[in-house]
């Protein structure tokens, strides 16, 4: 389970836009999209491959933290990527994007890659926000944009992976300081020059344990 990089994501947006469902859909595709069943989760991790490199994505949902300022602040700062989600069938969730974005911009590090996601595009008949509007918003604020459906899994992979690609490119360009874990990027265990000054030496033990115990 070794990886070259670990990217931490957060998912933000109004409640009920399907954040945790997106997360689960991405991290555990085995949950079949079934009618009338919405399952979400607040944390997930998955390995992807970019440019031949194994990259682990850790996604933290921020649900339930809104009440505490200290918490939202810190969440933003610890992430390299953010999915900003709205629901295409609810105009108000789109209208709140500005507030979310302001928050994100204020608290996150300036390099954080933000992807705008219009979720639930399987519900075309109830659509309230046109795709063009999402595109325009993204263009105006310099975000990547995509419409997805956690239910049909449409574009879910792409959303997470494209965000990762963008982060990866930024790393290649040297924009991110990858030695600073506060940026939400971690270098994989085997990629560390030495393991000397890392407080948690735990990355190795996982594999040891995995192999050893059973």
């Amino acid at each position, binding site marked *: *389970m070794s990886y070259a990089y670990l990217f*931490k994501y957060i998912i933000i947006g109004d409640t009920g836009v399907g954040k*945790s469902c997106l997360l*689960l859909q991405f991290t*555990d595709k*085995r*949950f*079949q999209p*079934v009618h*009338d*069943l*919405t*399952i*979400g*989760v*607040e*944390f*997930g*991790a998955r390995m992807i491959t970019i440019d031949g490199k194994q990259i682990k994505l*850790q996604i*933290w949902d921020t*649900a*339930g*933290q809104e*009440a*505490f*300022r*200290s*918490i939202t*602040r*810190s*969440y933003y*700062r*610890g992430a390299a990527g953010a999915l900003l989600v709205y629901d295409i069938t609810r105009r108000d969730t789109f209208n709140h994007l500005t507030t979310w974005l302001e928050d994100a911009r204020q608290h996150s*590090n300036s390099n954080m890659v933000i992807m705008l996601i219009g979720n639930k595009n399987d519900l075309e008949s109830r659509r309230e926000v046109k795709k063009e509007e999402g595109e325009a918003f993204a263009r*105006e*604020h*310099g975000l990547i944009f995509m419409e997805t459906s956690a239910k049909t899994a449409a574009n879910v992979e792409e959303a997470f992976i494209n965000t990762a690609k963008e982060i990866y490119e930024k790393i290649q360009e040297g924009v991110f*300081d990858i030695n*600073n*874990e*506060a940026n939400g990027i971690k270098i994989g265990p085997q990629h560390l020059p030495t393991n000397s000054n*890392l*407080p*948690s*030496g*735990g*990355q190795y*033990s*996982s594999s040891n*344990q*995995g192999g050893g*115990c*059973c």
Partner: protein
Amino acid sequence: MFRGKGWFSGSLWKPKNPHSLEQLKYLYHLFSKNQVVTEQNKALLVETLRSIAEILIWGDQNDSTVFDFFLEKNMLSFFLQIMKQKCGRYVCIQLLQTLNILFENIRNETSLYYLLSNNHVNSIIVHKFDFSDEEVMAYYISFLKTLSLKLNPHTVNFFYNEHTNDFPLYTEAIKFFNHGESMVRIAVRTLTLNVFKVQDRAMLKFIRNKTAAPYFSNLVWFIGNHVLELDNCVRMVTEYQSRLPDFVAEHLDHLHYLNDILCLHIDDLNDVLTDHFLNSLLVPLYVFSLTKRRRHSQTEDDKPHVSSVVSLFLLSQVFLIISHQPLVRQLAHTILNKDMTIFTSKPREEVAAHGGNVNTEPGFVAPQETLEKLLENQIHAKSKHMFTKSSESSSMSLDDQTLEPPEEGDVSRPPSQDMTSDSSLQHDTKDEEQESLSECSIALQSNGTNITDEEKAVAAHKLSQSALEHLQQEFSLSNRPFLEAIFNALECTENDHAALFALCLLYALGHNAAGINQDLLDTVLMPTDKSETKQLYNINLVERLIKIIIQSCQYNSRIRLATLEMSILLVKQLVLKDGYSFLQDRHLAAIEQAREESTLLLRNFYKSEEIFLDMFEDEYHEMKKRPLNVEYLMMDDKLLLPPTGTPMSGVEFHKRLPCGEVERARRAIRVFFILRDLSLSLQGEVETQLPLTNTANCIKMNEVLDLTNFPDNSDLIACTVLTKNGEKIRRFMVIDILQLILVQPDTKKLGWGVAKFVGFLQDIEVAGDKDDSRCLHLTVHRPASSAGATAGNGRTPLLAARFVFDDHIRCMAAKQRLTKGRLKARQRKLHQIARLLELPEHIQPCPSPLRQGLHVIRDTDNPSVIHRSQSQDTGFHSKASSSSGSQGPYRPLFISTNRVPGFATMMKREQNSLPSSIQHESSGGERQRRPSGSPSSQRHSSIPRSRDSSPRQQRNSSSEEIPLEDLSKSRSRHSSPNLKRQSASGLPKARISAPPNISLIPVFSGHATISSHSGRLTDDTGKIDTKLAAELGCKNHIVDSLQEIPVPKSLRPAEIPSVSLVTGSLSEDVPHLLPQLHAQDGDIIQSVSGSDSEMDSPSEMCTKPCCMNETSFTEKQLLAALDKTRIDDQQLMSEETSLNLSEGLCHHSSAAAEIVSSSEAPQKAGSVKKNNTVNKGAVHTV
């Protein structure tokens, strides 16, 4: 095993519908067959676990029998069983994820209760997973966090067992409070807050008695170590510095977290937190470090501390963020009134005698044990006798509380306790005797029996008015080492690094409305908005503030704008009450003095260059748009590093020193605005002159206008607007004083029109079309004030379109009027600025030649000159200007057809103390009238008009001359005349070139002229010719160019080169030579040319805005000019002539041409890029 596998794959057993009770039964079967985890069945188990989550959620939402079956079979126990075998991360993770999904998605309350009811979940929580595996850790902590989100007064009892004093969810989680992974720490914090939020007295009592002290002491120690690292970062200029932003942000996170806890108002918990936070961190580390700059630094150096700058910064943050009364009050009291004795340990017995808390003695020391150990000790202590005294006493009070009927979901403290803590604090505050810090917290815990005594004490100590007065005279910083340190930090000897933070700290102290009471601040005479009166304020402090303000008005000041703004905020906080100022006269005088200084400083930069006006307005809007936000300011890690001047540091302009001349000008503008505002507020006056554009008077979009007001229909030019996206609209163009308006005739009212577009004339750019003589390209840029100007859409123009007119005459007319309108709009504003800077005549009404001219222009009733009241000039177009338009598409607007030669007069007020000729050269941006008696002035006066805008001409006159010629030649490609310019022999530094431009003037004489001019003008011309022998080879007006003069740092302010001005002359004005002189030492400039000899000339009247000179430099030109200098690297540069056509009229005989010549002699002073001297002489010839 083999059979098991068969079952798994066998479709016989596996129900077709994955969402059904049968499916769960099948899964149960699998579990019971695979109770031992082996390498072989791992995958199966994982899949089973996953499916269970799915089916349970489905059941929760659709079929209750599913859940019943799950509970009936006690399937959760399988989970535990699997877990207890060393199953490896693969299974562990799936297990945790299934639990996560389960608890996150269950909506049915009953289902949730069932899941929690047998103690399985707690067993899972305390299970020792392999936390060194980051993924296991992440899933585990997410699981705990998910559970904490489900907490409420009902569910909490599933997690907290009152009888066994057990609360694994909380105690297990806080063990990770300092985990290396930030997301884990955040999850822990979320969880703790979710727990505290639940209003369950027994549970909170447990938290308070068993966990609060261990957790908070460790937390505070953790924060303190972060602070030490932060300090290290600041000290060491190394690669570590890249981590500084994180440390600062992290510290803010800590403070916000503590504040979030405090804001839950769980008083018993807050007392413990306050105690630890104050006595183990804030006082011993932050406050202690305040003194680390000077006096006390040698003592006790072994104690951990940070630099005073850092401590000022951190304390400001504390007061800006935290408002918990007992905490901030105590902290403020310590800072304001205590001395170093608080750090000398009290005898242990004394503390003990007070029944004091273990930790009340200030000291930044590590907790004796790790959190885990401490928790263990606390929780597993079986009986109460093991508790510390403090926890016992508080637990008593908690017991008391629990006896009372709990208010509906309210944990707020009972009123009696409220009073106790308040009064004890006040008592402490008032009391000038040194009370130990511990007393406060002790008092907090006391039962309130002594309230009345306390209150008496308060009353007795309440500072009477007379006592305050006494204090104002006698106020001393001795015995107040901390306050003294803060005051000393206000001293900006080398820089204002610490001063900015000290200001913020003092501001935050006064601004912490919820927490700090005014009585406390009165002990150091710091009135705030809460004070009834501000009659008495701390003179020592105000004088220090004024000193900063005065320092910031100097040319090479080391005071950043943010510091100045903070000083002023603080001054206002101290002396302004409801718009009334209590500032003593001498202090007010000092501030007025500073304001004068700031005006003088800005005068040095005053230029009629285009960019100056833009900068001026831009800075104003910038300032209004983004007022200083102290909280944001104190979030900026970059401020911790020593102040810098380079923009490459990424530090915002107002938080650093200016770099280069343009930024110095910007800074001067800001300082001027800031001090003007202060002065006005102190005097209770309202700003009437800013912003320059009064939008209330402007025409708005879709406004219906009575166009019949425009007497002459020629003011309405019909045109077709072709926009970029192919639209084609028919409109009428109206040119108002400040605005360009495109109207559509109103269908309802004849002669009225609806404004379909409005733009400011000052922002337009006009260019002809070389292929189509009926066509103009018009761009209207966004004004600096508009919101969109700096936002995402950047500088996209308001309008960029092609205008097609009926014929080429109308086209030319439109062009001229636009061009002229633009110039006049700008001149008007520059004149406003001049008035703001108190540059001249308004105070000293000296009948300058310009004045008359102005009159003429303004006076609409002078038929010969002007036809229309508002758009007087529009009807007149000099051919010259129109032809100039065709000269080059790039600078159509710069043609100074209507330059008014009045500029110099505006500066008149300043007198030049320097003897004569030399001085005017030196003027940096200020034009002076020379004393008429001086030799040079005589020369000048003999020359009708010229402008000398160049600073620093005193150097090297000879060198200037040659290059000037070169430059003029080089410039001629812009259609500019070949000018020859020579310096007037008698005027060593002033160069005046006379353009022979009569050719320009020809043109349109369609309107009446002022005949009186001609004579005069001719005379002038003659003079000019003889004296200056300048030639003009061009037919058009040319605006001269070029300015931008980097100044060597060593220059005194007075030497700051100004940008040269181009004088525009209207035909009604007699050209004048107006040298630009620099005021030195506040001398008044007198008009040279002027004053006496030419008094009666019409142009004398021209003092109004429209007569102001205007330079038309664009950045492009400027750059071009600079390039040029670079290219030939010769000392002298540039020369421009400009001809001025009469405003509204041209006549052959009397056209005014003006040449402004500018020469720059780079003076290599030091390594500075280029130091140019610009000499400008402007001569108007007729």
